[in-house]
């Protein structure tokens, strides 16, 4: 669950961007930016000794992570949409910038001059009132949980509604498939694409923070390739919210197996290196993408800058 939720959130973010027609390979970098600022914010508040509710603090950090993600994604949007730059290049630039930024600023603000940013876990709750007492379901979903897990599902639900049930969603999708058609009926393609990229920035920023909170006590300027894994989830999920959910959980499961392989009695007895399990998600990504890429349902105009004059 801890592995799947960030994948879900970030992949959904990527979905908004790509459905509007902009490839967002910068998810990884946006995650780092979001996670870094979120964690720094939490650290500062915690050190200041302010008495603030853990969940409240988490929500504030989520907001900040999202805002920073949105801000950074503007750079990608500007180069990809206005300057008609190669979207892969501008995305890669953000990916390279992000860890450098996190390390540099991290060292500047930490007392010992290390790049790790520490924080304390104030956010876990043992059980959700009432729901936690339910048999089986309660144990699975409502104990030892983080608020962010539910946030993930909320984002999924809202994404689905927005994409399929609103005017905004319809217009966004048309811009990713056939921007000329959208333009001919008076839709501002540039605006819609900006919206798509910014939403992806917000969600990637949040996703970054959501990735760090449950799995670690410090942030070390990396999100371990989760942004790229989210891209794989997005593709494997065929750019559709519900399929993204299943894929995210599939990859989450693989990651969980990898992380706990030495702890699970059955797996421990099989003489396979734990590195093998750690490789699994990536190997499977490669295999799956090889076989599914043929009947991919990628948005048709994805990655192609929109030029009003072009026909």
């Amino acid at each position: 669950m801890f592995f799947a939720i960030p994948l879900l959130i970030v992949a959904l973010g990527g979905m908004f961007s790509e459905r509007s027609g902009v490839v967002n390979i910068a998810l990884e970098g946006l995650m780092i930016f979001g996670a870094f600022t979120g964690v720094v914010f939490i650290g500062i508040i915690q050190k200041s000794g302010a008495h603030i509710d853990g969940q409240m603090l988490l929500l504030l950090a989520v907001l900040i992570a999202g805002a920073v993600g949105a801000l950074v994604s503007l750079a990608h949007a500007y180069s990809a949409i206005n300057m008609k730059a190669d979207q892969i290049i501008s995305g890669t630039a953000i990916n390279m910038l992000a860890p450098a930024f996190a390390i540099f600023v991290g060292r500047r603000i930490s007392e010992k001059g290390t790049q790790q940013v520490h924080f304390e876990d104030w956010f876990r709750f043992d059980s959700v009132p009432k729901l936690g007492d339910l048999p089986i379901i309660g144990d699975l979903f409502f104990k030892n949980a983080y608020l962010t897990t539910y946030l993930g599902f909320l984002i999924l639900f809202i994404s689905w509604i927005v994409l399929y049930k609103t005017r905004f969603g319809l217009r966004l999708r048309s811009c990713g498939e056939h921007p000329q058609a959208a333009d001919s009926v008076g839709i501002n393609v540039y605006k819609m694409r900006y919206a798509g990229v910014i939403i992806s920035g917000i969600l990637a920023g949040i996703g970054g923070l959501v990735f760090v909170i449950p799995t670690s006590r410090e942030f070390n300027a990396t999100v371990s390739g989760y942004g790229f894994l989210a891209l794989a989830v997005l593709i494997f999920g065929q750019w559709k919210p519900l399929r993204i959910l299943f894929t995210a959980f599939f990859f989450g499961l693989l990651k969980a197996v990898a992380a706990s392989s030495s702890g699970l009695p059955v797996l421990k007895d099989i003489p396979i290196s734990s590195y093998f399990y750690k490789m699994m998600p990536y190997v499977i990504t490669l295999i799956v993408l090889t076989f599914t890429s043929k009947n991919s349902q990628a948005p048709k105009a994805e990655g192609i800058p929109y030029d009003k004059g072009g026909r």
Partner: protein
Amino acid sequence: MLGVTKKFPGITANDNITLQLKKGEIHALLGENGAGKSTLMSVLFGLYQPESGIIKKNGQIVKVNGPNDATKLGIGMVHQHFKLVHNFTVLENIVLGCETIKNGFLSMGAARKKVLDFSQEYGLEVDPQALISDITVGMQQRTEILKMLYRENEILIFDEPTAVLTPQEITDLMVIMKNLTNQGKSILFITHKLNEIQAVADRCTVLRKGKYIDTVVVAQTDKEKLSEMMVGRKVTLEVKKPLIEPGKVIVDVNGLTVKNRLSGKNIVNNVSFKVREGEIVCIAGIDGNGQSELVYALTGLMKADNGCIILDGQDISHTTVRARGLAGMAHIPEDRHKHGLVLDYNLAYNLALQRYYEPHFQNKGFLRYGEIYAYADGLIEKYDIRSGQGTKTPVRSMSGGNQQKAIIAREIDRAPKLLIAVQPTRGLDVGAIEYIHERLIEERSKGKGILLLSLELEEALGISDRTLVIFEGQIVADVDPQDVTYQELGLYMAGSGRKEAMA
């Protein structure tokens, strides 16, 4: 539109053009490619601002600054290339851009009713729930028309609407257009097909090289006059060809079959035919009935699953594209941009594409540019290929007609035994069509075998000596163009004559 002038650097695309559309009429706008039709429409839609001239609607001067202004004025357009989102439903495409919203959510119910009402009223049969990618081109076009009606447009512009339709669909469209004008809509109909103008249009405005020629009442003129106005000289619409007794068999295709890689269905199903010397054989059929695949299999662009091809006594069923070319096959491809030319190469390179490897053009692997340019100059002269900078012209910047001339020059100059021409006149104007037909007849007179694939009935019957009809990958008819009517051929193409043909 009164006295509209639009200049581009070095060229006056529209020179003092006046176009008056009356309420409830079908007004044709006729002109060759590059005559300024598209520019004029772009001015009307506010995509370009004219240097001079005004646009009036109902007697009032209006200012059009963009497509949205045009929509507000009730002007809508069916573009030549449909502006439809392929994985949206018909209904979603229609409402896109002017959706109805209820509590922040889309509400499609009212829209569906409105669309169905229009569909009833004007005889525009569509399925609102179907995905665009699943429906026929005709239905896509009806979707586009509904899009305009849904926006309550009064002035409907059709940009070469029949280019993509089957003969039956064209007839349907004509009926729809008449219906629309009966309901008080006005239609501007851009085309370069003369019989369509005669069939539906009330009046016709002719443009030539950016200049306004005249506006005529269609009933008081005829095809010859119209084409003369359009091209600026007399054009022979009837193809004249000398009688030739066909010689020996050049190509013998037997049981050719191509399977779809995904579904395993036979796209080309057991096709057999022969082409003889001095004979033009036309394969007619509605687009998408296996013609493209048949040609790919013949030319070696795609592997055939079964059957054999004998070219002049040589089995070439399993040889490469170049081997087939060397064996005497030339190919004028369907899509000149995809298979015919390297658009960003200059004209000389494109003309040398089939021969650069010959000893004359290369020396131990190094190209002999002097020879290549000299050869290109020769072809340009001989085939009258017009371009801005001669051999150095990037092919992308040339007009469609001249691009096609370049391909024809390259292919014919290799002195092939068999020439496969796939829709060689697609998208070209009357002058260029005439030129290409002349070249084909000329090759026929030299005793070459010619296989012509065409979607146009007129072409299929006009210049061929024998017409085969392909339907769902099978040859369903083999007729003499002399004794078959358009209607009969249309029926064969729609598949209904299959039984009789096989019997």
